[in-house]
C-alpha cells in the first residue's frame, strides 16, 4: 500500500522559522532527515521523496478566458506551506503512521522534538484489469 506523507512548515511572519535557529540546531535537523531517509531507502519502502523550494515564488495558476495562465500570488501572509513529501510503499497503515511519527520527532530549537504535523493519505491503486 502506498501512502503520501506531507510535511507542513511554519512560514509565520514572512521569515522561515528555521532562519531563527542556531547553526548546530540546523545541523542536527538536517542529519535527522538524512538518517530517516536512509532508513526508508534501505528498508525498500521509499518510493519518492521531494523537498520543495520556499513559498517566496509560489503562485496560484488558473486558465484565463483564452486558456493562457493567469497567476495569483505571492502570498506573504501564509501561515503554513508544504515543505516536502514522501511516498512510501508499506505493508500496513500502521507502518505509514509509524514513519510519520518518526518524521514528526525531527529536532528543532534546543534539540527538542518539533512534533511536526504530518498529513498521511493513502494513494489510490490502479483500477483492477477486469471490471
Amino acid at each position, binding site marked *: 500500500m502506498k501512502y503520501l506523507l506531507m510535511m507542513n512548515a511554519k512560514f509565520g511572519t514572512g521569515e522561515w522559522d528555521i532562519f531563527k535557529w*542556531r*547553526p548546530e*540546531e*540546523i545541523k542536527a535537523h538536517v542529519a535527522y532527515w*538524512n538518517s530517516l531517509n536512509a532508513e526508508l531507502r534501505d528498508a525498500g519502502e521509499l518510493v519518492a521523496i521531494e523537498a520543495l523550494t520556499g513559498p517566496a515564488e509560489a503562485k496560484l495558476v488558473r486558465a484565463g478566458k483564452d486558456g493562457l495562465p493567469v497567476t495569483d500570488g505571492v502570498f506573504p501572509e501564509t501561515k503554513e506551506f508544504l515543505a516536502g513529501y514522501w511516498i512510501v510503499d508499506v505493508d500496513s497503515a500502521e507502518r505509514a503512521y509509524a514513519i510519520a511519527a518518526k518524521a514528526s520527532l525531527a529536532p528543532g530549537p534546543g534539540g527538542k522534538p518539533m512534533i511536526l504535523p504530518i498529513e498521511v493519505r493513502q494513494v489510490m491503486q490502479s483500477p483492477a484489469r477486469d471490471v
Partner: protein
Amino acid sequence: MTRATAEEVGHLLRELGPQVLGVLARRHADFASAEDAVQEALVAAATQWPSAGLPNNPRGWLFQVATRRLVDHTRSEVARRRRETTASELSHAERVDGDVAVAPDGDVAPEQDDTLVLLFMCCHPALTPASAIALTLRAVSGLSTAEIASAFLVPEATLAQRISRAKQTIAASATPFALPNAGERAARLRLVLHALYLTFSEGYTTSSGQSLQRTDLSSEAIRLTRTLQQLLPEDPEVGGLLALMLLTDARRAARTGEQGELIPLDEQDRSRWDPALIAEGVALVSKALSSGSIGPYQLQAAIAAVHDEAPNAAATDWPQILILYNLLRRMSDNPMVALNHAIAAAMVRGPQAGLDLLALLDTDPRIAAHYRLDAVRAHLWQMAGDTERAIQHYRAAAERTPSLPERDYLITKAAQLASERDSSPRG
C-alpha cells in the same frame, strides 16, 4: 563459444552497442529505426550469451541480428501500410534469433568516425539539451533507459518517452544521418560540448552522499569527452572541456561532508584533491592554450587550474584569476561569468569593487532575481564586515535556491553570522 558471466556480457555490450549502431545508422540512414533495432539485438544478446556463451564474433553477431530486425521492421511496416499483415509475418518478425550466420569481421569494422557521427547526431539542433543528453547517454554511452532514468531521478517510462520523442524529432527534421558539412560542423561541435558540459554539471552538483546509487553522470561525461578528445586531439576547446571536467572532478571527494553538506572551495581539505586528475587537467589545458585559439572552456579550465594548484586558499593567485575572468567576459555574455568575475574583483581589489560590479547586474533580467546574485552579495557583504546585510542576503538566497544542499549551506551561513552577532559584545 566462450563462456562469460552476465556482468562480462554487460560490459561487452556497452562497448559494442554504440559501434554497431554507428555502422547500421550510417548504412541505413534512419537513425531512429537503427537505434530500435540495435536495442533489440542487445536485449537478445544479454538474454542468450550468458547461458549459451559468446559467439566467435560478438560484434558481427550483433550487427547481423540488428540488421535482420531492421529489415523485419521495415517489412512489417510496409506490410502494415498495405493492410496485409498476417499472423505468420508477425511471428516471423518476433522470432528469437538463435544461431546467426556471421559475416567476416571486416564487414562491420567500426570506424572511429562513427562515434563522432553519433555524437553529432544525438546533439541535434532540433532537440532540447535534456533530450539530446538522454539520447547521447543511450546511443553513445550505451547506458540502459533505466540507468539514465536513475541518473535524472525520473520514472523510467518518462525517460523512455523522452528518448522516443527525441528520435522522432530527428527523423522529422529531415537532416541526413551524416557528419554536418564543414560550415555546420563547428556549430554542431559546440552543441556536443555544451551537452557534455551539462551532463557533467548535472552529475557534479548532485553527487552527494545520499545519491550514491545514482548512475554517475560526471564519470560518464568525462568518459565521452575523453573519447571525443582522442578523435579530435587538435581541437583546443575539446581539450579545454576535458581539462575543465578533470580539474573540477579532482575536488569531488573534498566538496561534501559526511552528511552530504556542501564545503566551499576555501574550506576544503586540499589533501583530498586528486593530484593525478589535476596533473592531467593542467597538462591538457596548457597544451590547448598554447594552440593560440582561446575559447571559453579553456579559460574556465585555466581558472580551475589556478585554484587546484594553490597549496591553500590564501595562496590562490586571484590576480591571475581576475585576468582570466576579464578575458572570459569578453567572450561570453553569460551573467554567471559576470558573478564570478565580481568575486575575483573583490578578492583582488576589496569587497566594494565586487559589490559595484554586482550592482550592474540588478538590471539584467536573466539574473536580477536569481538566488546566486543574493548568495554572492551576501558573501561580499560578509567580507566587508556588514553582518546585517550579509544575513539578509544569505536568507534571500536560501529562500530561492532549488538545491537542498545549497539551501542548507546558505541558512547555516546566515545562522552562524546571527549567532556570532548575538554573542559578541555590542558597542
